[in-house]
């Protein structure tokens, strides 16, 4: 299962991804790959995990290999596997990969497509891959992998957040196998907000997460979400992910 968590900036994508990681960690027989699509490294901070190198570092190294004369496709493919393994931070049954800061190193479509294939190959070794996408699904498609199984759209209760989610869904329809996507509303203060949004959007609202000071406190103090106790938001996130068969 490959899950991309998408939405407008600041709506809580990283919180949901981090809770998913905390829930997966320690689960018997389950291996999870967490991909941080935020150039600022939000998911890494939320989990107190630091990747030894980023996907962009890997990309630069592979471009270096090509420039140095490496031409064999198989050699490039095995090099990428090696470099991706070097880029992983591991914590128990979880592995963490950071996309990192994009740098303009020219257009290397061949490298990008090889890299995506390598990440897909890597993800194939895991039971669950969660991509905390920077914003839209385009980034995932361009830099991480060609298709995902499910797009988890996240929005707060603002109209703007929901509109951004709708736009992401339209783009996602072209790359998500089966077109599976659902909207989770975050920082909900009153259930009536959820009903109001349900009536105004074409998106399927699959759940909502209450405003929760515990989450706010963890964000403010940069405490690892692996330490997050049972709290209303955590319970709601796990419920949504489990009810939709994502976890």
């Amino acid at each position, binding site marked *: 299962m490959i899950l991309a968590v998408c939405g407008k900036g600041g709506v809580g994508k990283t919180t949901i991804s981090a809770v998913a990681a905390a829930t997966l960690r320690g689960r018997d027989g389950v*291996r999870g790959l967490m991909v941080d699509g935020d150039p600022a490294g939000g998911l890494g901070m939320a989990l107190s995990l630091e990747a030894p190198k980023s996907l962009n570092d890997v990309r630069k190294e592979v471009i270096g290999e090509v420039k140095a004369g490496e031409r064999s496709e*198989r050699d490039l493919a095995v090099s990428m596997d*090696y*470099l991706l393994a070097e880029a992983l931070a591991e914590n128990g*049954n979880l*592995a963490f990969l950071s996309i990192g800061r994009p740098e303009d190193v020219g257009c290397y479509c061949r490298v990008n497509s090889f890299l995506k294939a390598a990440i897909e190959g890597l993800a194939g070794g895991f039971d669950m891959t969660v991509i905390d996408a920077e914003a839209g699904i385009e980034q995932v498609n361009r830099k991480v992998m060609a298709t995902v199984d499910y797009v988890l759209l996240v929005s707060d209760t603002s109209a703007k957040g929901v509109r951004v989610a709708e736009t992401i869904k339209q783009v996602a329809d072209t790359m998500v196998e089966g077109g599976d996507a659902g909207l989770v509303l975050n920082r909900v203060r009153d259930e009536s907000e959820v009903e109001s949004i349900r009536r105004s959007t074409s998106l399927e609202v699959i759940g909502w997460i209450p405003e929760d000071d515990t989450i706010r406190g963890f964000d403010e103090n940069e405490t690892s979400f692996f330490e997050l106790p049972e709290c209303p938001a955590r319970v709601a996130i796990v419920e949504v992910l489990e009810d939709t068969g994502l976890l």
Partner: protein
Amino acid sequence: MERSGEGVRKPVIMGLFDEQVEEVGRFLACMRDRGDLRELEARGERWPSGSSLLLAEDTAMELGNPSVASLSFVVWGDPARVRDGVVSLVGPDIAEVRSDSVPFAQVLIVSGEFTDEYESYRDLREAIYDTLLDGFTVRTMPSRQSVWCRVSREAMDKGFSLGDLGAAMTRNLKAVEPVSGAEALFVTSSTVDVEKLAPAASGARRIVEALMKMYEEENFDCETCEYKDVCDEVMDLKKIREKLADEKARAGP
């Protein structure tokens, strides 16, 4: 390589990697004198093939982790110098390692009649890449000539040995058409021992790079070529260059 009067290719006289095979031979002799070289017995049954991604928590030990010395290369040599099927080890085998990470060198030497050096070399590398064993993950970085392996706790408990790895590698290499014999050497003893093989590894790499350049770029201007020094030293490379230049001239513009 030459062409006979009928246009049929005659096998190349071996020698492309003679110097590297010699160097490995000297290393083996030195280790034998030191009392640190042994041959691993091939077990009765083959270790099962399989591809698995091992996380650190499933890993009993690592060989050639990027933070320690690691070397890997394949060369071919005179059949008289290749001990077919032999797997040698300098240092502890998997079950004897007392830490979770050791330096690692993997040297594979094959013999055979290589009529197309370029294709043969690629086939040998493919055979190595395709050696996938259950409970054993290997990652290869060709430009660094390094490999990074993980052995699962389960494989270790079941008695996985470098003898199993060597047997699988030599078997796969012998499946490459022109290969008649294959020998494997592993080093796990120390960084110093692994680095003793570095000159042979870098020599092999320069020869392969020169070979690849000749075949892929078809540029035979020696004065501007960064591998001129290698071709000047290795007679077989010079012969290959002359053969390719001749073929190109015959084919015309």
